[in-house]
Every structure is written in structure tokens, then in C-alpha cells.
């Protein structure tokens, strides 16, 4: 069997961390959209964003959740690039051909 450039332990750690990130980010995803924009929207609507005509629940459903989504993907990109480098000794994952496997 060929020697891998990474240890089995490092690979397992990478995947565990990845799952942790997903769990945290998707919890925020759920709370910002289906939580704030749907389930708790009536409670949040009792608050108005100061200086605007926006009720908070309404704003989350029509604006805020989308901004949160964008932030989540941005954070995920940064976290995963860092995680890749940790695993691959400072290198990035290389290019790959579309058809090879």
C-alpha cells in the first residue's frame, strides 16, 4: 500500500472539523431564516428597527436572512480554505480535470 502524504489521524480530524463547521453554520442558517423569518416572526415584529419603518421579523424575512446567508457562505469559504491548508502543509488543494477520477 502506498504512503499517503497525510496521516489517517489528520484526515479524521479534518472531517470532524468540517462537520462541526457545518453544524454551527447551518444552525445559524436555520435560525435566521426559518426561525426569525417564519417561526418567531410575530414576536420579532413587536420590535422596530430604530430609525426605520422596518418591523424586525418582516425585515428578517425579506432582507436580513439573505444577508446572513451571504455572510455564512463567506465565512465557510474562509474556514475551509484555512482547513485545507492545515491538512496539506500550507498548500491549497490542486486543480483537477473535469473528467478524471
Amino acid at each position, binding site marked *: 500500500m*502506498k504512503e499517503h502524504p497525510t496521516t489517517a489521524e489528520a484526515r479524521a480530524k479534518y472531517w470532524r472539523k468540517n462537520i462541526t463547521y457545518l453544524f454551527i453554520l447551518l444552525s445559524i442558517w436555520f435560525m435566521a431564516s426559518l426561525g426569525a423569518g*417564519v417561526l418567531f416572526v410575530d414576536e420579532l415584529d413587536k420590535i422596530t428597527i430604530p430609525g426605520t*419603518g422596518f418591523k424586525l421579523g418582516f425585515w428578517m424575512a425579506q432582507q436580513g436572512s439573505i444577508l446572513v446567508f*451571504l455572510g455564512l*457562505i463567506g465565512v465557510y469559504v474562509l474556514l475551509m480554505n484555512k482547513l485545507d491548508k492545515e*491538512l*496539506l502543509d500550507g498548500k491549497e488543494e490542486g486543480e483537477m480535470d473535469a*473528467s478524471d*477520477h
Partner: protein
Amino acid sequence: MDPVQLWTFIIAGLSFTLYIYIAIRSRAGSTKDFYVAGGGVPSIANGLATAADWMSAASFLGMAGAISTMGRDGGCYLMGWTGGYVLLALLLAPYLRRFGKFTVPDFIGDRYYSQAARIVAVICAIFVCFTYVCGQMRGVGVVFSRFLNVDVTWGVIIGMALVFFYAVLGGMKGITYTQVAQYCVLIFAFMVPAFFIAFQMAGNPIPQIAFGGEYKDSGQFILERLDGLSAQLGFGTYTDGSKSTIDVFCITAALMLGTAGLPHVIVRFYTVKKVSAARTSAFWALLFIAILYTTAPAISVFARLNLLEAVNETPRVEAPQWFEKWSDTGLISWQDKNNDGLINYTGTVQPAGAPPLAENELTVDKDIIVLANPEIAQLPAWVIGLVAAGGLAAALSTAAGLLLVISTAVAHDLFKKTINPNLTDKQELKIARIAAGGAVIVAGYFGIHPPDFVASVVAFAFGLAASSFFPVIVMGIFSKRMNKEGAIAGMISGITFTAAYIIYFKFMNPELNNAEHWLFGISPEGIGSIGLLVNFVIAGLVCKFTPKAPEHIAQLVNSVRLPRDAYAKD
């Protein structure tokens, strides 16, 4: 010829010339070019193309109008059609890109070591894309007919010829770069009127901020004024919902999960060079989509307020000029039921303590909100021409992306992988082109002769994608144990459940289609979320009682989960 038509001809003509020029510049030379644009698209370009691919005639023309009649409940479209990108970026895109190959059925067929699973996936992909593409061709025809006074049929034929040209010639490569151009046209066309109207309404040109601002220095917030006026006319308070929480929840979830499972969106992430680029381009895609999606609810509010202010209890003879023009097209219709010569526009929620509402006399087509916006705001003729070109760009880009998935499914998944594995690259490319051509013609036919169900099939496409693709791909990546028996049983039960529910309420018993008869109060639009649960549960159960997935599958899963450089090269 009036100036609006002249400008529409000029702007639409210029944009078409640009698309054709790009298509000629980026012809496909191999199946790899044709299916995935050679796998070398930069991530920003892919983000732009994904955004154009994703935003259809419905997003561009219909969404703002739909939200303006739904109020807060319209948030289910806004969240549903953007939130799916989080799922796509985190759960699907990077892994599928790392797996490589060309299509979703490729992944399902290999991961579940089964031709049967591949074929089920191909059938789902073709069905989902066809239901969608017919609506797009219809959209092209409608825009042509409204702005250029040509027959819908001719509009569809011109659109077909154009899509045929760049999809058949350029494949994914041609489509990608025309979509980049189409995004620019459509976002410009959407934003210019929005800036003007936001400035008129609130003195701030940024629509996202303006719709939380004050109405024309009246000291009253725009939303407050709209809430008051809506309630007074019996439409209920704009910023409150009228649908049940469980229904909004399920619709939002189904749209999110369906978005993440739509094959024409997923395939876009196969076109970038690296896995990290797949992640980054998901970010760009959502950014470009969010520009339109955060503007749309602002337009809904402005347009709604303008409409209520302008027409209610206005004598018909004093109605604004745009009212006249759109009445001619049949998109606005008014019937003076109480013969008082006034336009009575009222809803069904009688406000407490007020005199009884007059009977409603006005019907307004939802597409009008975006189409008539420039006229309501009295913008120059070229802006109206621009909106027409934007609507065409939105419809054409989505149609092309969908047609490509259909041709790939036929040529690659069916011919190459199932019927004749010995096809050469040249032969396969030829079949792909013929399939794309055939698909254009079929889609055009349905665009000219739309089946009655076109409007209801959108729910179908999302429900199917949510209850079939999404769960099996996620399980394929995150569970090593999941086997082919589980996956096939899951897909079939998820789809059957969802399809049966939709067919029962939409086609067989439309008279029963109300909350009283729905399962747990969930409408057919939202049932895909339950279909997804059915898929997961059945797959899990079947998997428990059948042999574990073979050893080489565990290795395949590992290779999809981690960067390939983490393993030795062989």
C-alpha cells in the same frame, strides 16, 4: 413607430447581437467543453453565470408582483430561493466538484453502484428541466408580444432560434459566457427603474434602505402608510402574514431544498477548476442573486403603495396614462360594478368599525408590477426598452441552462453510460448537439401551445428536486453506509409521495385544494419538505435491512470528502 418600441428594438437587438458574437467566439470542441465548459471557468464568471441561470423570467417579471400581493408571506420566495445556496455551498457543490465527471446522475450512478439508480436520476433530471423550460419559452414569447407587438408564436420562434444557435453550437462554454452578459443586462434593467422609484418615494436611491424610510417627507414611514392603506381597503396589513406558520415554513423549506437539488444549478459548479473555486463561486452567485432579491421586496412595496394611492376611488376618466395603456393589453381590467365611475379596488378583510367596503372592480396581473414600473414612475422610453431586454435576458439564460442539462442527460447519461459505452467523444458530442436541438424544438412547441398546468408545475419541479436529488446526494456524501437499495427506495418513495400529493390537489381535485383538506395544513407548494423526510426515513429503514455498501464505495466517499492531495497519487 412609438419611441418605446423603437428603443426596445434597438436595445434588444444590440443585446442579441452581443449574445451571438459571444457564442461564435466560444464554440465547443469536445464533450468536456460542451458539458462543463472545459472545466476552466473563473469563479466570478461562474457566479455571474449561475445568477443568470438561476434568475428566470419568473424572478425578473413575476416575483416582485407576487410579493406585492402577499406582503410578509412573500418572504417565503425570497428566503427559499436564496437560502438554498447555503445548502448548496455547504453540503453539495464542493463535494460534487471533487467527485468530478459531468452530471448529477453520474454521481448517483457511481456512488450507489447501480444503473437503476442512474436511470431514476436521469428521468428526474429530464422531467424537472422540461417542466421549467416550457415556462421560460413562454416568458420569451410574452415579452416579445407585449413590447414589440409581435405574435407570441413569433416571439417564441425568435427565442428558439437564438437559444438554438448558442446552446447547440457553444454548449456549456457558449452558454456560460452569454449568461455572464445576460446577467449584466438583466441586473442593469432591474436596478435602473428601482433607483429612480426609490428616490421618488423616499429621497434615497438605494431601494433596500428607501423602503424602510419616510414617504416623501410626510413624516410617515412608507411601510406604515402602506399598512394603513391596505387595511383600510380590506387587503389586511401588508407587513403581517395571512398564511399559516406551518405552511409558510414548509413552502420556504421546500424551495430551499429544491433549489439545492436543481440539476441545472448543480451542474454549474462542475465548470470551475478547483474545489475551492466551487465554494467561492457559490458566494459570488448568491451575492449577484441577492442584489436582485433584496431589491424586489422594495419594488413590491413601492409599486403597491403607488397602485393603491393612484387608483383607489379615482374617477376612471382621471386615471393615469399607464392605466389606460395596460388596460388595452388586458393586464389591468376594470368593471364598474356599482356604476359610480370610480375605480373601487378592495380586498376581502372588512376593517372593524368602518363602513362596508365597496365591491372590488379591478384585476391587476402580477407581471405588471415590474413591466409598468418605469411608466408609473414616468421614466424615459429607453428605460422601458431596457426592462424588455432584461426580461428577455432572464428568460433566455435560464432556458439555455435547462436545455443543456436535458441534452447532457440524453447524450451522456443515457447514450454513453447506459446504451453504448463505446461511443467516441466526437459521436457523443454530435448526439449532445442533436439532443439540444430536439429539446429546443419540444420546449418551443410547449411555449407556443402551453399545457394548462404550466403555472402549477413550478411547485412540481421544486418539490421533486427536494424530495429526490437532495436527500440521496447528501446521504451519498455524509453516510458511508447508505447503499443502493436505500437510495433507490428513498428516491422513488419521496417522489411518488410528493407527486401524488401535488397531482391529487392540483389536477384531480382542484376544488379540494384548501387548508381544510391539506395534510397538516401544508399546501402542495410546501409538500416537498415532507417528501424529503419520507425519502430520508425510507432510505434509512431499507438500508438497515439490506447489505452494507461495498468497501470500494467507502473509499469513493473518502475521496469526495477530503482534498485529493491528502491521498497518495497512483
